[in-house]
């Protein structure tokens, strides 16, 4: 334990997840004080471009998007699960199979809807407004109903004391400049103010666990802050507002430095080789980034994290090594379910496997209250589309792993809509099926469960009390 010098970096990161290795020093690292209280934590796992419904949703096995599908020539009614509203036993569908070992620790929620605000590409709001606190049509100066996202709002409360208020991870490894920021980010400080994500595992590792290079710029922050204050006076009103991001960024970094300094002794015990070259297979890449996220949550570096497995739309093909021998574009395939449905189901399953891997990892980490990290967190899986082919914003695939420290029920399937299923376009607009609830209700429920005093979140109409213990 004392010398980890010869253990590879990746081995170390893997090791972080096993309680045997992690507990002795990682807990002291996380605890820091005697009156250690298990913190509230939340993480979000975002899957782009929707899912194939028939293999994801219980009772929708009959639904399928036909060859030559177009959005008004199918019988939406026949695709509905007709499952009653309320709690059901959780039945794992083919796509959810990877969660088999964790069945009693996850909850599936069906029938949650969003509203697409016409005026942008349909994919552009999928991720960028997934966690948004703005109601559709509420903002006048932008086509996006986009405001401070849930992760930051939660962190304002539950991330006050961690070195990083939030952490953003992404597994977008595209290097063509093809899409705008709206397709590539789920985490936003505010409207048009993106919280960019870490996507290089090595850089992320250094930032999180090697704080030594920071002290070097400590001495110039005072100078530049002072200068920024005088510059601000020279700006117009709206520029002054936007320029606030500069102060906020520096303040945040200063706090990070301070808190990381407090943890430095512990962090310095981690002495590692850092081999890192070549392009990693996609699954390994996602798991490695996920390892970093889990390690950050475990060690108390942050209490709130978002994790985007890939960007919306972005047509550039990826190589999914374990699935196909040639690079495939998830988005392009989603536009032709008739032809690619089997491949799409494989992609859905692949992303679920990675989610399950992270859940299992969290579930192996024992914490001071005798429960596991997974028990103590709310780890939400979700996509911005209910189906990649119809582009519907309703009947979304949403799963929660963990119970947030015993606050949420687990092992169930909650259906909130009598008509969850594929959605047809009528008169040019998507009809949200009757009886569903806004996704924002779930976000409000999570926020309140974590102690935030909120009456509403975006277009929420209330909380979902049947999710609570």
């Amino acid at each position: 334990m004392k010398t980890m010098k010869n253990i590879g970096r990746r081995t170390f990161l893997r090791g972080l997840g096993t309680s045997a290795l992690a507990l002795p020093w990682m807990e002291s690292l996380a605890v820091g004080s005697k009156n250690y209280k298990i913190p509230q934590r939340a993480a979000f796992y975002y899957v782009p471009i929707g899912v194939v419904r028939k293999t994801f949703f219980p009772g929708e096995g009959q639904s399928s998007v036909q060859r030559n599908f177009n959005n008004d020539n199918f019988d939406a009614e026949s695709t509905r699960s007709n499952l009653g509203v309320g709690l059901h036993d959780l039945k794992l569908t083919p796509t959810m199979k990877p969660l088999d070992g964790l069945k009693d620790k996850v909850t599936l929620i069906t029938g949650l809807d969003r509203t697409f605000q016409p005026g942008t590409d349909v994919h552009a709001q999928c991720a960028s407004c997934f966690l948004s606190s703005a109601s559709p049509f509420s903002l006048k100066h932008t086509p996006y109903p986009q405001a401070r996202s849930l992760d930051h709002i939660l962190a304002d409360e539950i991330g006050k004391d961690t070195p990083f208020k939030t952490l953003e991870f992404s597994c977008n490894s595209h290097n063509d400049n093809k899409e705008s920021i709206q397709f590539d980010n789920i985490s936003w400080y505010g409207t048009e103010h993106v919280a960019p994500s870490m996507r290089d595992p090595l850089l992320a590792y250094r930032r999180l666990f090697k704080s030594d290079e920071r002290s070097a710029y400590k001495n110039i922050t005072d100078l530049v802050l002072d200068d920024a204050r005088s510059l601000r006076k020279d700006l117009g009103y709206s520029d002054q507002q936007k320029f606030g991001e500069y102060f906020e960024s520096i303040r945040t970094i200063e706090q990070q430095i301070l808190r990381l300094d407090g943890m430095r002794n512990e962090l310095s015990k981690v002495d590692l080789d850092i081999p890192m070259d070549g392009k990693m297979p996609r699954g390994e890449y996602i798991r490695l980034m996920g390892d970093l996220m889990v390690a950050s949550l475990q060690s108390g570096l942050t209490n709130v994290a978002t994790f985007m497995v890939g960007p919306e739309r972005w047509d550039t093909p990826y190589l999914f090594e374990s699935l196909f021998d040639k690079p495939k574009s998830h988005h392009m395939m989603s536009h032709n379910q008739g032809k690619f449905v089997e491949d799409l189901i494989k992609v859905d399953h692949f992303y679920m496997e990675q989610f399950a891997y992270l859940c299992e990892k969290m579930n192996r980490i024992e914490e001071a209250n005798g429960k596991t990290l997974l028990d103590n967190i709310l780890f939400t899986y979700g996509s911005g589309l209910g189906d990649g082919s119809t582009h519907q914003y309703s009947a979304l695939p949403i799963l929660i792993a963990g119970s947030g420290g015993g606050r949420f029920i687990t092992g169930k399937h909650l259906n909130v809509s009598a008509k969850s299923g594929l959605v047809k376009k009528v008169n040019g607009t998507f009809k949200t099926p009757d009886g569903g609830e806004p996704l924002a209700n779930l976000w409000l429920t999570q926020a309140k469960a974590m102690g935030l005093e909120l009456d509403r979140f975006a277009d929420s109409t209330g909380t979902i009390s049947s999710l609570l213990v």
Partner: protein
Amino acid sequence: MTFRFPNVYLAPELFLRMVLVLCFLSQSVLAKKEFSIEGSFESYCIECHGMKGKVKGEVNLISFTEGKDLKGDPELLQTIMEVIDFGEMPPEGNQPIDNTERKMIVAELKKLLAESVSGSEKDLVKAPIRRMTRFQYANAVKDLLELKVEVFPLPEKMMRDRSGYFKPASGKMPAKMMVSSRPLGKSGLIEPRMDGVAPFPQDLRAENGYDTQGDHLSLSPLLMEDFFRLSQSIVKSPSFNPKNVGVWTQYFEKSKRGINQMDELKSRLQHLLKRAFRAPVDDKTFSKYYSFAEQEMNKGMEMGDAMKDVFSAILASPRFLYLYDRGGEESRESESRQNLDLASRLSFFLWGSVPDDQLLDVAMEATLSQDEQLTKQVDRMLTDEKLKRFCDSFPTQWLQLDRIISAVPDEKKYRDFYYGPPLYRTTMDMMMEPLLLFETVLIEDRSVLELIDSNYTFRSARLSKWYGDAPNGKLGGPVTIRFTRQSVKDRRHGGLITNGAVMTMTSGPLETKPITRGAWVAGVIFNSPPPPPPAEVPPLPEEKEVDDSLTLRERFADHRERADCAGCHEKLDPLGFALENFDPVGRWREKYHNGREVDASGTLFRSHKFSNIIEFKDAILKEKNRFVRGLAGHLLAFGLGRELNPSDSLALDEIVESVEGENYSMKSLIHAVVKSKPFRGPSVKLALTIKSKF
């Protein structure tokens, strides 16, 4: 032109529907006694837009026929004017507005728009304060230090000059040049660069826009950490030495003995701060940086080293990192400050970097905003080699050339497209062709219409072979490629629309995508991108699934028959199908593989019939002012760092008008853009019309 409507977001489906729905026409208003906009609305529009509660596309015009003032809604005015001007309204199938009347309506609407947006100067929209892009940051550091190596690799640059061909002062592009491509899938690494300096992430391009767009350029703690890290790693890099840093003696050399140390520090700092902050600094700001250096020296640090630390602080300072117009009350008064803002805008536009001493000097004298000086400076900037930065950023983004990187023609069907493992493709030659044409039109100050139709082009041996010409010389490797200037006798080629790059990146692996091509032409060439596609675009059935005897046009027929698709297709189809003779990898074809003839005929803007690509180019040239206006809009949006809006519309008209008499030369266009009111900025006093010749 793409406009963002602050208050009216038209539902795209509804907006499109405007195009389809019958608008009843009783009789031409010309037959009536008097022309009026209200009368025209009544005759052509309100049947669908207001009568009996019908409000197609959420556009209700009935109140305007009842006396409401149209001028109160410039966004709506702009929209109406465009759909009428481009012939999108009234929709096909209705009695059209004849050309004379159409022109009258457009002229009248234009007048109303002018009245609507004239008024106080502060209504001119400013770009928000924004941080530099990665590209600008690297250039700025390089220029401040007169660095002989790159700061960090920039895959933003698609084409690198390997033979020193780029000599804007000569006014001539050579007949031969060596260029190297951005290695596909790798981040360019050819040039020597600073050791131990790692870049921050590349900035993404706004949709239908540029990476300079201000609302996309915000700061976060993660990025600020990068800036701190960068500012340190640059001065600590072993490459930060007298050999690489051109201004070493000026700033970073050990101070000589026997001179007044403090005076020396003062003079070094003053110049550095002025350059980095793009303005002379006031005493307060100066003393902050001065005392910082002084403290370091008091701790025993040598002056050159203290200057390095100051430089590192400067690179993290908002005065360096941010682009902004001074907006405080005080600055409105000061002409030199407005001039300094203009100097920065100008240098980031044409050099992608900070202004040089000369530009700052004339700005401080407050003469830059005068026509004569502005012309002189722009002329100078256009012959400086830093102009390469403009060529490395604007044309690739304007043409959306990044899309070629992810184009993957089917490996079986287009085997010869790939020529070596793992990533070498003909793409790498293709992407140079339009860029070299653009640079030639700029450097040689030729007519921008040559971008549509030119009698010369640039080809590598591989590209010649690709197009079916006899290759001239060796095929060459993938990294450094020889291009030669060749005359084009066959008008199917020439210009950039039909370049292999454009044709390939707007195709799928197996077949062309006429609608994607149409959207590209609409957005890039005419700056009128279609609204986002409806959510449920039915996929075009793959080849195996459909009747193999159909042509692509026939297979699309059911799109046009569907009410919610037809609107867009009426606009995009002619633009895209005109290019059908170019297959998915940009080669000429007369027939589809099923033996059917390619039909590339159509009508542009419902007025110019064409039967093939050459006639299509002619049709575009008949509408040359629309193209030039579109290009002017692209340049302006790129330079200003924001989307354009109706208040810029008049400026675009004036720009077009002023370059008409200049043979549409590229430099006159840039001059006119720079002299336009939106570019000069809200606070510079100048007459509304810009007709001065340069």
